[in-house]
């Protein structure tokens, strides 16, 4: 079979790097195009959905765009396949309590430009700011209820905007402080978890303790000693997620390092190291670091239950 892939690679009709036309022609076309081609939240192609349904769907687009924007920032390189959804589900804590996690994501890279989070814009296309690298989440089970809060920091300073996403009773609600209208969408738990999987900081899932235990039990992480971090004893757990690039004649991998509290297993920091490969050549690297600022289990009292809903 490997011979077959060698033969296939040898049959590539493009032998040398091609010379694309200069970018100026494209830029000229962009300049000539009317403002309607600018990305605008709330625009949707197709007119088959009519009336209030169309309005509702149009209103939801900014939220989804925002979600995708956050996913691009927060979830880069994370898997979103059903097995991850299952993992995340399995990693949730027990019912009767609320898990509260605050985390922060940072990046460093070589060879790949533009790591800044994208600028979010309002309905009129005016820039609002960038999504903060810090997010806060409250999760409860049976049935699944969840709220995640993101902050959008204006570029030129000023009061930050907030975006709250909640899920309960099969409905995802998005409230953005810059929009008057609350946006809602019916989603199955599975579909919602798939969206959330993209947004989750790191693979342990909403309950990092259960998540790390699951990864250890599954043999995905191995212990690599103990160390002290900011005066705290932490266990170092390492793993590697291989990508088998047989066809490309190379293989790559994401190296993962978990630093967890030596006594409670609460994750303190997760580092993902990726190598970016283009056509078999290493062109850069990307390091993502998720730092857990808080992890707590709250009793499901009425006051704490309120944290799961929009404020």
């Amino acid at each position: 079979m490997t011979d077959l892939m060698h033969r296939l690679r040898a049959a590539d009709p493009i032998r040398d790097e091609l010379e694309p036309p200069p970018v100026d022609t494209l830029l000229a076309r962009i300049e000539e195009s009317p403002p309607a081609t600018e990305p605008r939240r709330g625009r949707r192609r197709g007119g088959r959905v009519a009336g209030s349904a169309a309005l509702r769907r149009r209103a939801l687009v900014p939220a989804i765009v925002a979600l995708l924007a956050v996913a691009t920032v927060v979830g880069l390189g994370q898997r979103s396949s059903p097995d991850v959804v299952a993992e995340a589900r399995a990693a949730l804590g027990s019912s009767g309590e609320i898990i509260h996690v605050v985390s922060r994501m940072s990046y460093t890279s070589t060879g790949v430009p533009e790591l800044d989070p994208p600028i979010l814009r309002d309905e009129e296309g005016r820039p609002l700011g960038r999504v903060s690298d810090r997010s806060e989440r409250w999760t409860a089970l049976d049935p699944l209820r969840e709220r995640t809060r993101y902050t959008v920091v204006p570029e030129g300073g000023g009061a930050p905007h907030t975006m709250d996403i909640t899920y309960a009773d099969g409905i995802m609600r998005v409230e953005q402080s810059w929009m008057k209208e609350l946006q809602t969408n019916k989603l199955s738990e599975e579909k919602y978890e798939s969206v959330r999987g993209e947004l989750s900081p790191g693979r342990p899932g909403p309950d990092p303790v259960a998540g790390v235990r699951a990864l250890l039990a599954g043999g995905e992480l191995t212990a690599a000693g103990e160390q002290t971090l900011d005066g705290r004893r932490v266990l170092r757990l390492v793993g590697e997620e291989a990508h088998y690039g047989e066809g490309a004649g190379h293989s790559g991998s994401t190296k993962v390092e978990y630093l967890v509290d030596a006594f409670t297993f609460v994750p303190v920091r997760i580092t993902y190291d990726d190598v970016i490969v283009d056509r078999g050549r290493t062109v850069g690297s990307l390091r993502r670091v998720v730092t857990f600022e808080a992890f707590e289990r709250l009793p499901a009292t009425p006051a704490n239950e309120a944290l799961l809903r929009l404020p």
Partner: protein
Amino acid sequence: MHPVTVMRSAEHERFASLYERHGALVLAYARRRIGAAEAEDVLAETFLVAWRRREEVPVDALPWLYAVAGNVLRNRVRSERRRTALSACLAAESARLEAESARGGAAPPAPLAADQLPADADAPDPRLRAALDRLRPIDREALLLTAWEGLSTERAARAAGCSRATFHVRLHRARKRLAQALESETR
């Protein structure tokens, strides 16, 4: 300079840098699938989409661009199909009229080339190309993304718009089918 102008110029710069990094690879992707004449159009359309959706372009942009280019190609195939269907209708109608007068028959329309690799007399290993042409497009694409575009399974999965596990299965199946197709070609 007005802040909007500064922002636009920075966006143009980022776009130009994206094109510089990946333009040649996207052009090669298109050339392998549609031939030289139309490949530059596919390249331009792909990057115009990238401009319109510039805030969605991920850091690892290449698989995303391949996915867009694949959609552009498929749209072209659909348009071509509609155009060919119309031509075939017209041709059939004209053949029917001719047949009525000369008692002749119309030749069946030529099969669509768009679902196959472009004709290339200089392409190496014509037998392999013939075997590739016999595969379903989805299988062929899995093979080409890894072998010709040189993507790892994870990135190829992103370009194909499926999970890595799905892509793994697809690739495995495609390799088996290619081997079978080659075997029957050699018989």
